[in-house]
């Protein structure tokens, strides 16, 4: 159950009732047996934030009753076509399940993509990278990538496939941390890191498209960014425009700063010209 500490106001999940210490501030509090029955004398010092009716859990969080395959399929379908319903039903105390969903989805798709690329598309990919490396501002990058792809041995390919879940775990947590930082900077992190993490984890569903060569990756990534915005809106219960701002802030910050610098440089150049 989710409990809010009366001292520091932070929300945390706990499996047991009775006297315990807040994991955030360390101060003692009492969790009642039932959210509806708060013992007299404790009521003023304890605010239980029991799950609203809507947060019954996503299909993946209820996989014990639905069955793993059906739960996974329903979660992916809801993420792609009914994201508001999925994110609205996500429970913030089910972090391990959400992490498992993201790890399974992205790792499986990435490994399939790597195998397809290694066995069927290697020559085509190298030709494509060589062409990209022929000119343009990113030429040196594409050349390096082509070189690295050419030197890939079966052993290193297998190693990369084995390391994929670890890379996905690191990327997921870094993405959630950056997104949460942006959300907090905008003053919208109303329900803590667990809410941001749930949004980022279920937003990984479109990354199944990574397994499709060619257009799968860009479509999947853009879809994921959009879903992260929808997820933040639902899990933090914030307006859509602020959720979009939180997701796009890291990108917009860079672009806006560059545009501002470009305008200033342009004005300086115009003043300097005869």
């Amino acid at each position, binding site marked *: 159950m989710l409990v809010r500490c009366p001292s520091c106001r932070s929300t945390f999940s706990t499996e047991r009732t009775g006297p315990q210490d807040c994991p955030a*501030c360390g101060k003692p509090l009492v969790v009642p047996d039932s959210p509806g029955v708060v013992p007299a004398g404790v009521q003023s010092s304890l605010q239980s934030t029991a799950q609203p009716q809507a947060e019954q859990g996503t299909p993946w969080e209820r996989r014990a009753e639905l069955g793993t395959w059906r739960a996974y399929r329903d979660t992916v379908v809801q993420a792609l076509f009914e994201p508001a319903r999925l994110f609205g039903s996500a429970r913030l105390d089910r*972090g391990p399940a959400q992490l498992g969903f993201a790890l399974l989805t992205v790792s499986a798709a990435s490994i399939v993509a790597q195998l397809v690329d290694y066995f069927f598309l290697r020559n085509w990919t190298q030709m494509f990278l060589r062409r990209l490396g022929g000119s343009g501002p990113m030429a040196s990058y594409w050349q390096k990538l082509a070189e690295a792809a050419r030197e890939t041995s079966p052993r290193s390919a297998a190693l990369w496939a084995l390391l994929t879940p*670890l890379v996905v775990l*690191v990327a997921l*947590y*870094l993405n959630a941390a950056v997104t949460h930082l942006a959300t907090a900077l*905008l*003053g919208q992190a109303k329900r803590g890191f667990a809410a941001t993490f749930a949004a980022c984890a279920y937003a990984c569903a479109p990354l199944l498209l990574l397994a499709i060569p060619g257009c799968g990756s860009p479509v999947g990534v853009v879809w994921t960014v959009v879903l992260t915005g929808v997820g933040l809106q639902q899990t933090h219960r914030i307006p859509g425009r602020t959720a979009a701002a939180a997701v796009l802030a*890291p990108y917009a910050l*860079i672009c806006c700063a560059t545009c501002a610098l470009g305008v200033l440089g342009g004005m300086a150049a115009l003043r300097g010209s005869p």
Partner: protein
Amino acid sequence: MHALGLAAAGLAVLLSAAVLPLDAPPLSLFPCPFRAATLLPCLSCGCTHAFAAAVRLHPIDALRSNPLGAFAAAAFAVHIVWTALRLCGLRWVPAPLPVTPRVRIGAAALLGLNWAFLVLRGGP
């Protein structure tokens, strides 16, 4: 649970920075596309070098590469140690920083200063 996940991610990043050479794949495959397109650094330009310098205990080099990256590496290290201590039974938890408008403006200003430093410093 998320504290443990963040600590694991941080540990993986710091170990990668300690073990992987900067001038060979995969780290050499991370040139900044933003810098390539605009000739200007992005907010995270130099973070790979900052992490590599930080784990080798060269704080000045880390700060020169990217102050934000150096701070992030230090924050990861502190979080890993703190999580390990909590797993060993430490009960003390620092009070969470209240995110007031003043704190938010200060953080945004620090990000801006960090980016201005990278622009003025130039170079890779």
